[in-house]
């Protein structure tokens, strides 16, 4: 009889302890949706416009490097942006205008606007047009995995993300978010899980209540070349300078203004 009672108690404990432990673990994990929302909020300018000079350097192993410069104007509250190429001379005047889900590319030579896509490469570099869109990690992705780790000096949550719809350029992502809420690194994957690129945000600058990355490094996982017997990946580094939160005229985000700028 006593042996039976002991067995019953032991069996009950074997069920209860893991349940309690798991409940406790759940309570220790933060709300990842809130983490993503915070990451979005820190780099989004909901009440002001944002403009800055972006300088791009693309390094192609075995072929040297090339540089470009562009002025970027953002109005995050309307999910719109305008980009005008400034350097090199042969690209001057080319531009992109995003308005809602429409993204237009302007060629000053033909004076024509053509419909392009967020998934396309920006100026044939490793950045994509979608990289300039307002951050919407919390809306575009859901968290399917998490772990804690250190990235350099930063303690980070590493989250495995899966896109919530089929119109997100990179359907899978691994993201490093430091405890201050800023995205430090992402690994972007295809739908089938192929690692396509790695993006690092080594430095941020605060402006007002928000932040912007002063340097972004994009490394292509599938493109590169052999240099001195070693395979090196293609990379694009862009820096952001001369930021401004000055309100821009509404006409800035129109095709007409882009055409005038390009003249």
């Amino acid at each position: 009889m006593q042996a039976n009672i002991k067995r019953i108690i032991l069996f009950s404990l074997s069920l209860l302890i893991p349940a309690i432990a798991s409940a406790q673990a759940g309570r220790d994990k933060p709300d990842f949706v809130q983490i993503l929302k915070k990451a979005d909020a820190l780099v989004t300018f909901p009440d002001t416009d944002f403009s800055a000079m972006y300088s791009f350097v693309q390094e192609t192993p075995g072929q040297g490097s090339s540089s470009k410069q562009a002025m970027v104007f953002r109005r995050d509250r309307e999910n719109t942006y305008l980009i005008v190429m400034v350097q090199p001379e042969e690209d001057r005047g080319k531009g992109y205008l995003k308005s809602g889900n429409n993204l237009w590319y302007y060629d000053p030579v033909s004076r024509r606007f053509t419909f392009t896509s967020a998934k396309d490469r920006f100026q044939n570099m490793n950045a994509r047009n979608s990289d300039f869109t307002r951050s919407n990690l919390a809306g575009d992705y859901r968290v399917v995995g998490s772990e804690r780790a250190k990235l350099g000096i930063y303690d980070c949550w590493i989250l495995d993300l899966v896109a919530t719809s089929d119109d997100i350029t990179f359907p899978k992502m691994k993201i490093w978010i430091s405890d201050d809420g800023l995205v430090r690194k992402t690994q972007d994957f295809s739908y089938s899980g192929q690692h396509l690129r790695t993006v690092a945000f080594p430095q941020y600058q605060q402006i007002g209540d928000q932040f912007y990355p002063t340097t972004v490094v994009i490394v292509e996982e599938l493109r590169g070349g052999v240099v001195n017997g070693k395979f090196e990946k293609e990379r694009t580094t862009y820096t952001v300078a001369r930021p401004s939160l000055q309100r821009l005229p509404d006409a800035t985000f129109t095709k007409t203004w882009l055409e005038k700028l390009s003249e």
Partner: protein
Amino acid sequence: MRAMTPQIAYRNFTRNGRRFLLLGLAVCAGFFFVCTVQSLVSGLSNQINTRGARFYGGHVIIRKENQTGTPAEEDRLIIAAIANSGVRPAVVSHRTHFGNYSGADGVIYFNGESVRVRRVIGMDWSAEGPKISELRFVAGDPQSMRDPNGALISEVTARRLGASVGDQVILQVIRPGGAINTIPVTVKAIFQEVSIFGYYTVYMDRSVLDDALGFDPHYTAMVGLYLKDYRQQDFAAASLRHALGADYTVNSVVSLMPEIRTMLEALTLISYGILALLSVVIAVGILNMYRVIIYERTREIGTMRAIGVQRRQVRDIVLCEAFYLSVCGIAGGLIVSVLALFGISQMPLSGAAGFDIFLDHGHLSWVMYPDVVGLDALLIIIVTLLGALGPARAAQAIDPVVAIRAE
């Protein structure tokens, strides 16, 4: 006596061989020219249509923009309509395409290199294997495409990637919503196709492509029909359009290449223009030369009349001779044309920029369609008879007494 007209004409023809030689050479030259030009034009057309059919999936392409039923139901409807239309295709293909016509390029990655792909063609090897096998392969065995994870890439693509048969490359496609997807595929064979129909084209298994694009396994973007005779494509397309109704888009492959179609039609018109011109030249030439021949044979004709050959029979004998003349000229022209076409087809022309689309493995090809040759021959015969008609009537009017007395 009338029943012996063909024999008499044949005897006269063979005995006056020297007189008819020049005329025969004229007919021979004319037919040779027409036959050669038309065969070359047919060869160009055949090449374009073969390449186009391979690229687009058939000589007739059926698409439905807004599929209302399940893919399997839609396919059953199309197959039933094909059966009811009276069109009897040699091969029915089912394809999914991804490429610049759908708004984005595919990309192949290998060993750090990348190549934009103009068109990724998902096909069923079991149905289209024999057609795709007609490509010129420089490496690998296309029969190994029975492996659904295989792909056929062009020589240009392979060279730029540094890829070989057996290498696994990564193909990047964009799903309809815009999400990037990648598929690892193994290069099974490398084909040589320098025209726009193959330069940056990849062939792969349709079900694998459908899966990568997020489509139903039974989904097909289009159904294609390879015809036994590509010249029937417009008629077949019209029949299918009638059978399928307005919900479907049915195109002949040549209608998808309007500039090429215009050029081919122009070439065909030119060849018929040449035929018409030559017909006039032959008719006039025969008229003039036959007048001389009849004049030289005045006594002979007078003798025939004197022994009882009637006027009408004299006319028929002359026309029969003209018929034999045209047949010999046609036969000679045909033989010379075949020899010339064989010689022309041996010349390598792959260096001519932009002309590769018309060549068969770097050489001009030619096709002699029996119906076309037959029509040309019939026309030459009619023209020859028309040319000989005047002199034949003049011969029948010859007075035998006057003819015999003539020096």
